[in-house]
């Protein structure tokens, strides 16, 4: 399936027009909408902006938690079912100015909270490779739109692996850069200290091209990094011989002889061999199991606390769906009771509880300390290694209704290790690495803060040793 460079070449030599590309995306989106439900909104038209950027004239999809002036933005929540923003997110503005064509807003887990793609207010998102399975989340629709070949790239957000996990389940590339690399201005906040915007595409080069466009210092975001004046798309072909990566021993134990996990580990072994063939050294390192098991509860604690505060603006008073009642308290309560799903309410209750005066020290501040301990441990290892390499998930995309043991090591550790990338703000990418039971699987590479180009470089080279780049789930008719 054509990536950005191929499409750009066709645009340049006149064999296609941006109109054709745009309409093709719209048509595919409509064709697959009923079965896979990737979109909340499919737009009718685009504004032609003159630009000589590498993505000018290229259609793309944007997760529906990114502010787009004049276009409905719901965060897949009923409380925002009527919300039309009056300002543009910086990431959207940059893509617009670069001449890229927004063709739709994609479904997410409500308010970006979730990892199944099943909790959006317009329904569940199905996995393009097997519609009886989820594609994960929260950037479910963005991942699916790329996996279906509707668009060559899409924008998602990643707070606890919400780009990198659905990328693995969807057989596409998903990149979360260093915290602050892409401005968060206009991204509906979930957990401000963990939120990142990022890119889906079908190969690493395309991801690098788009990242080059959307990264950069933003005066509207005080957590945004100064410009690094590096063009990632030119740095991804560097030789990676001599790079050192580690994987976490405790995360890859299979004491119960789980069949699926064994296949995951097998696939990982193959990737390690590919690394060796590139001259990349891959070693095993040990991290205490206590610390690894603490990742998920720490993440839940911090993210629920922050989101309770971040989503306190959703009252229906000055935007969104207005509630009913005889006092402001009643009106706010009504809007929020009707507007949020049970899962969201649960997280808000948890977050409120965690931040209460008598609990904060033990539940919130301790979680912040554990986060610091995890990051310190990784930074210590990063003195010797250029990155972490791990399977992106403990298995293939689960079937709808499939039960899993949330307290098992397999879930706690192997299905959640990518949160490390959010805790420390490390650049982190998932690339497809094969198939198990006809479902795609992926591996994750996480590097030092600010070394986005190194992570993309390593991923690009490893991708080059395999044949999973540019794949899509369905053949175009």
């Amino acid at each position, binding site marked *: 399936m054509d990536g950005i460079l191929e499409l750009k070449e066709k645009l340049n030599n006149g064999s296609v027009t941006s109109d054709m590309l745009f309409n093709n995306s719209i048509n595919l989106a409509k064709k697959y909408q009923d079965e896979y439900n990737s979109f909340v909104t499919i737009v009718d038209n685009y504004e032609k902006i003159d630009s000589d950027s590498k993505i000018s004239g290229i259609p793309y999809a944007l997760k529906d*938690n*990114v*502010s787009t002036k004049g276009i409905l*933005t719901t*965060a897949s929540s009923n409380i*925002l079912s009527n*919300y039309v*923003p*009056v*300002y543009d*997110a910086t990431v959207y503005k940059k893509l617009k100015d670069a001449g890229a064509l927004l063709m739709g807003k994609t479904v997410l887990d409500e308010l970006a909270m979730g990892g199944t793609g099943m909790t959006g207010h317009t329904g569940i998102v199905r996995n393009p490779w097997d519609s009886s399975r989820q594609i994960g989340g929260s950037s479910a629709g963005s991942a699916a739109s790329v996996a279906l070949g509707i668009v060559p790239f899409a924008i998602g957000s990643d707070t606890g692996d919400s780009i990198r996990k659905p990328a693995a389940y969807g057989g596409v590339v998903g990149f979360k850069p260093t915290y602050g690399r892409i401005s*968060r*201005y*206009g*991204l*509906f*906040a979930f*957990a*401000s*200290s963990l939120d990142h915007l990022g890119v889906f595409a079908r190969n690493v080069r395309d991801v690098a091209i788009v990242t080059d466009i959307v990264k950069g210092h933003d*005066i*509207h*975001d*005080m*957590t945004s990094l100064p410009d690094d004046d590096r063009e990632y798309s030119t740095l991804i072909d560097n030789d990676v011989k001599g790079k050192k990566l580690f994987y976490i021993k405790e995360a890859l134990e299979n004491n119960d002889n789980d069949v699926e996990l064994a296949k995951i580990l097998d696939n990982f072994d193959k990737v390690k061999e590919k690394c060796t063939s590139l001259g990349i050294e891959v070693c095993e390192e040990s991290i205490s199991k206590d610390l690894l098991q603490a990742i998920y509860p720490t993440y839940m604690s911090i993210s629920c*606390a*922050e989101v*309770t*505060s971040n*989503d*306190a*603006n*959703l*009252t229906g*008073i*000055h*935007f969104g769906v207005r509630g009913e009642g005889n006092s*402001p*308290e009643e009106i*706010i309560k009504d809007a929020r009771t009707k507007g949020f799903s049970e899962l969201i309410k649960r997280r808000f209750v948890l977050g*409120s509880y965690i*931040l*209460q*005066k008598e609990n*904060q020290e033990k539940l*919130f501040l301790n979680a912040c300390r554990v986060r610091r301990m995890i990051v310190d441990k990784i930074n210590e290892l990063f003195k010797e290694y250029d990155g972490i390499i791990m399977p992106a998930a403990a298995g293939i995309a689960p079937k709808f209704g499939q039960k899993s043991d949330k307290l098992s090591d397999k879930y706690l550790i192997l299905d959640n290790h990518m949160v490390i990338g959010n805790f420390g703000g490390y650049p982190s990418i998932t690339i497809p690495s094969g198939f198990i039971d006809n479902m795609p699987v992926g591996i994750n590479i996480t590097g030092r803060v600010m070394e986005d180009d190194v992570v993309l470089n390593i991923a690009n080279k490893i991708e080059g040793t395999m044949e999973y780049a540019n794949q899509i789930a369905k053949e175009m008719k």
Partner: protein
Amino acid sequence: MYKTVIGLEVHCELKSNSKNFSSSKNGYSTIPNSNVSVVDLGMPGILPVVNKEAVKNSIKMALAMNCEVPKYLTFERKNYFYPDLPKGYQITQFKHPIGTNGYVMINVDGVDKKAFIHDTHLEEDTASLDHYNAYSLIDYNRCGVPLLETVTEPCLNSADEAVAFLEALRSIFLYCDTSYARSDRGQIRCDVNVSLMREGDTELGTRVEMKNINSFSSVREAILCEVARQTDILDNGGKVLQETRRYDENSNMTYTMRSKEDAIDYRYFTDPNLPPIKIESDWIEEIRKEIPRLQYERSLVYINDYGISRKDATTIVREKNISDYYEECIKLGGDPVLVCNWLTGSVIGNMNKLGMNIKDITLLPGMLVDLIKMISDGKISGKQGKEVLEKALETGKEPSKLVSEMGLSQIVDENEIRNIVLEVIKENLSLVDDYKAGKRVFDYFIGQIMKKTRGRANPVITSRILKEELEK
């Protein structure tokens, strides 16, 4: 009898071009929702950006109140739901306020006292609500305006001390030019905490909070009202309930708002969108240099060194511009007491009559000093001086010009005066006999001389010469 213990939390809007965390205008407007941005409205996806000028003004105030300034600028979120708070939280400072452990000097009835400051911290203001029968209207103009909250220790012991503190604090804001501090525009507001202590008690009594009192006179009334209420409870053997009460100006009574049990837990935590910013000591020193000498210090000099009364000193220091004017006059050689009398009397009196501000008048300090010197030198009389001053303020003309225009320069030449005296005596010979007979006709002669000279004859010299001639 009980000792009254008062603590104040004063909220004051700071001056700056734009709001504390957004680029919309920080300015008074009568058109609702005209200075509003998406950031102020807390729309989904917005982020705060710190306003350096607001931070600078808050540091200036912290230093002017003798506070310690922290190494890093940090902010916390105060979380609660109310329609005037669109984000559902207020960005404020909780852990490391911009100023701590300071004090403000106050003077009540001639007694100096240090009013201790627990902390002063920078935060953002809320929207304003107008309540009607069936609906309420929200105006977000004020939402996000930089607000400095100053919290005293419970160290004030009377309504007078509380008001003195408020006035001293407002003066600091005005002298430092960090706020307009107008009560009538809601730019300075106060929460008052009152408790009573019995003689001999070592622990503070139960405190009651009264919220959002909007004028200094209301603060006085509210305190008196609350002290009376608590006194009544304690006298009758009851216990004061820890609660928040609302003061109603119209009925001069306080009403329960919420009790301790309903007290809100604001779940303060550090705002993750605002990374800590290092406050460089160079910058602090630069800001410190901008602080002018303040009201209290100037008063001390005026009273102790210049010898003017406390009442007059208070009048002069009330406005920095007046105080600066006064000091300029003295620098130019004016006598401190004379200048004070003229300033607090004729100058301010006429300015008020004409509705002018001392910034607007063309009577420069040098001109006032010259005018006073003209009187001391005897060139014109005090009465004439007052006339000239009034005209100078009215017309904007220089006093020296006016003196010539009005033909007012005094006659001090003795020969000239003697001639006129002799003239008048000659015209009123019969009265000379009356004078010698002891009748009170001296003033009539003076009057006639003044009439002939159009008031310009120097009174002292005239009196002397007249007496001389009459006695001959």
